[in-house]
């Protein structure tokens, strides 16, 4: 069972995994938070967009990766397809929590802010986003942990990452390989969960 170089392998695949997760999360945040804010302003868009994000979450991840392969531009084999799928998964919790966080701001606080002559951007940046931050961050935390887990499946379509060990281990009935993928992925999930929940607590209005 002694494998020289396994440790180096784990490090490089963990790095690859992190890049997959960080890229997907960055894109999901860049889409999900502005879209969530838009939904607070346009009630009519809520049902269709949340519905879309909901449906994305219900598609089994392996199937979603598979569906994307034949699609031009965003599909194919490799990291890009993996990232598209991961973004689609991460979107819902971010979108939903941004919406819920902002709509959850006390009505009296919002009315005072408006009545005092805050412009719409001032209301958003000085009142709504700071007060919604803990809720939004809770969504980000869920998205991050899910993405770290789901990203292991990216290896099935050539996306790399820690899933490489897991699929290799399954194929060769090699528990060590499976653990070499699963343990670092679990550790990453725990670390990001802990880190983000710490920030979430710091952001809660004093």
């Amino acid at each position, binding site marked *: 069972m002694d494998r020289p170089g396994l440790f180096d392998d784990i490090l490089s695949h963990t790095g690859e995994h992190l890049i997959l997760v960080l890229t997907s999360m960055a894109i999901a945040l860049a889409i999900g938070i502005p879209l969530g804010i838009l939904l607070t302003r346009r009630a009519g868009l809520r049902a269709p967009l949340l519905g879309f994000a909901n449906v994305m979450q219900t598609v089994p991840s392996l199937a979603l990766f598979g569906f994307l392969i034949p699609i031009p531009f965003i599909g194919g084999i490799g990291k890009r397809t993996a990232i598209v799928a991961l973004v689609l998964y991460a979107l819902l919790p971010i979108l939903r929590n941004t919406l819920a966080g902002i709509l959850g701001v*006390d*009505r009296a*606080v919002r009315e*005072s*802010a408006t009545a*005092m*002559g805050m412009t719409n951007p001032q209301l958003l940046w000085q009142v709504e986003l700071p007060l919604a931050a803990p809720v939004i961050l809770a969504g980000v935390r869920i998205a991050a942990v899910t993405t770290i887990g789901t990203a292991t499946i990216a290896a099935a379509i050539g996306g790399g990452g820690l899933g490489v060990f897991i699929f290799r281990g399954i194929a060769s009935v090699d528990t060590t390989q499976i653990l070499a993928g699963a343990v670092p992925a679990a550790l990453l999930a725990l670390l990001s969960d802990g880190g983000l929940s710490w920030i979430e607590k710091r952001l809660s*209005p004093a």
Partner: protein
Amino acid sequence: MAPIGGAAAVEFRDVSFQIAGRVILDRLTFRVEPGETLVLLGLSGSGKTTALKLVNSLLMPESGEVLVDGRPTADWDVIALRRGIGYVIQEVGLFPHFTVGENVGLVPRLEQWPERRIHERVAALLEQVGLDPKTFLERRPRELSGGQRQRVGVARALAADPRLLLFDEPFGALDPITRRELQDQFIGLREQLHKTSIFVTHDVREALRLASRIALLDRGRLEILATPDEFLRAQSPQARAFTAVLDS
């Protein structure tokens, strides 16, 4: 009060408002003279809060017009209009993530006053509403009692020296003793500042204590507009319903 014929601080001209087909305000017409405290008195659902929100353009009239300083609210830049009107509501609506000082200094900060001037103004205002700046400046709203919160709310409304103050049942959620204290403070501030105020309440005692004139609203109509003395002598059933409470 201003000479007859001068511009009113606020004027309602034939103002109607409906929500989902239900008439909230029915052809409301009255003037608020500069420096006076007009109390809008009425039961829940009489339309008094709606009338107040028409003044700072939180709502717009469906027909008729509301004039502030002689200009229809529709012609005002809404942000400028609101920054010149202090607004105090029952739930106070302090920003929980701001300190007391930041809450009070909000409108001056939006108006980009220099930081030093904001600081002096905030300290002076806290002093004026009976809160020691040293003790309260850095506190958060959740560390305050209900009465203290409403004092901060009043200080915040006064911060940028508004032309007009709107009060929506500001003392309604307070215990009777604190309410009395804040009413006294309101009277004291009015003597110092001579601000025009519109004050919404359903409490006839509060109305009689604070008003220069009382406008009694009944299902969206202006029933009576009278000084407190005249109001006590008014014979209409709606007014009697309120004054009858005083004898009990």
